[in-house]
């Protein structure tokens, strides 16, 4: 393939990944690395570098739209970013040390877990919980606009949420993904932050987390301009379009299709990693 053909095809694939990722809320970065490594035979380190860059673009590009709705909680985000950025830095240094086949296996496991998580029904909205002393001291409790007016919430289990966030950051730095699924898990399930607040706050955190490992990737030569260019522009374009049509689209069946794609790619990554093909 010539550079022109390669750039065009990668841009189109990235655009579709960004569009589906934003429509389903599962993120586009998670499918890009397997697609690039399995179908385009790109070395996984270049793929991770390009994906990480696109993760920053989508997170920052969507931030303005999310913020206007008034769901995100800047204090929860900033407090937990201490954990995610530290984890991301560690993950990025680890990524330069461990063999690529191990990276592929970890990636496969994360994909399978994301596919499982996306099919798991969400528990119904929780009742109002009593305030937690640590969360209150850290000023994490807040409120958000809901159907019946402003609804306030009390954050729980701060230490376990913080540790999960460290793990989310490490995965992000190791694999070049946003790991939004783990971030939402930490906030939604462990800290009992309302789902809408979790997803929008997580979107904000993803960009900052990715920036923490991007410096390491750049200086180690993982960020190739020729590859990152179509990936970043494609994913950004797709996700911006996705956030515009999100309201009208029927996302339920789309979500099913996309999680099947994630499942398939996860099995491929596991197979290729275990048999040493990556």
């Amino acid at each position: 393939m010539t550079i022109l053909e390669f750039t065009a095809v990668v841009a189109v694939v990235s655009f579709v990944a960004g569009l589906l990722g934003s429509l389903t809320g599962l993120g586009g970065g998670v499918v890009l690395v397997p697609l690039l490594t399995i179908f385009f035979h790109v070395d996984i380190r270049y793929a991770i570098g390009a994906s990480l860059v696109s993760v920053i673009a989508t997170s920052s590009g969507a931030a303005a739209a999310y913020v206007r709705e008034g769901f995100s909680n800047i204090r929860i985000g900033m407090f937990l970013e201490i954990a995610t950025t530290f984890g991301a830095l560690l993950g990025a240094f680890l990524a330069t040390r461990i063999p690529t086949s191990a990276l592929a296996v970890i990636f496969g496991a994360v994909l399978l877990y994301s596919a499982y998580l996306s099919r798991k029904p969400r528990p119904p909205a929780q009742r109002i919980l009593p305030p937690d002393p640590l969360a209150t001291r850290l000023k994490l409790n807040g409120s958000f606009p809901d159907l019946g007016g402003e609804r306030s919430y009390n954050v729980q289990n701060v230490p376990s949420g913080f540790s999960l966030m460290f793990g989310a950051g490490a995965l992000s730095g190791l694999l070049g993904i946003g790991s939004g699924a783990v971030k939402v898990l930490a906030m939604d399930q462990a800290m009992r932050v309302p789902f809408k607040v979790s997803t929008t706050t997580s979107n904000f955190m993803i960009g900052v987390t990715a920036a923490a490992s991007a410096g390491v990737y750049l200086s180690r030569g993982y960020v190739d301009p020729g590859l990152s260019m179509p990936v970043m522009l494609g994913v950004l374009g797709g996700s911006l379009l996705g956030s515009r049509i999100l309201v009208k689209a029927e996302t339920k069946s789309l979500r099913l299709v996309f999680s099947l794609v994630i499942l398939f790619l996860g099995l491929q990554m596991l197979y290729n990693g275990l048999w040493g093909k990556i």
Partner: protein
Amino acid sequence: MPVDQAPVPEVKQPARSQPRSWDDHRIEVILGNLLRSGVMLSAAIVLWGACIYLSRHAHEPADYRIFRGEPSDFRTIPGVIQSVINGRGRGWIQLGLLLLIATPIARVAFSIVGFALERDRMYVTFTLIVLAILLFSLFGSGV
């Protein structure tokens, strides 16, 4: 995009958290717009670099099978600036990507100002920690 059309809820509430969450929200809106402008500017620079790069190398073979790592022109800040001065397309692309990495860092830096205006020392400290980690990654790791 009108910044001041944020929904200001006028429903009965526990008065406790009200003024704080509104201030937070206003800061967030400003920062959100800052982030989007940064991303759009960096996308434009990357696109400009892509035009130069593709006009020169379009018909060469693409090969990313073997990891070689980037030459220092494309992985250090002085190297990137030098290759932009030399008019290289890939230099422009890397400059756009550097700007992209800088946008979330700028958001964190501006958040410090926001928390300082609210006289929230605890969160000024938290934000400084995050900023230190980000700056270490960008400058401490040898970019």
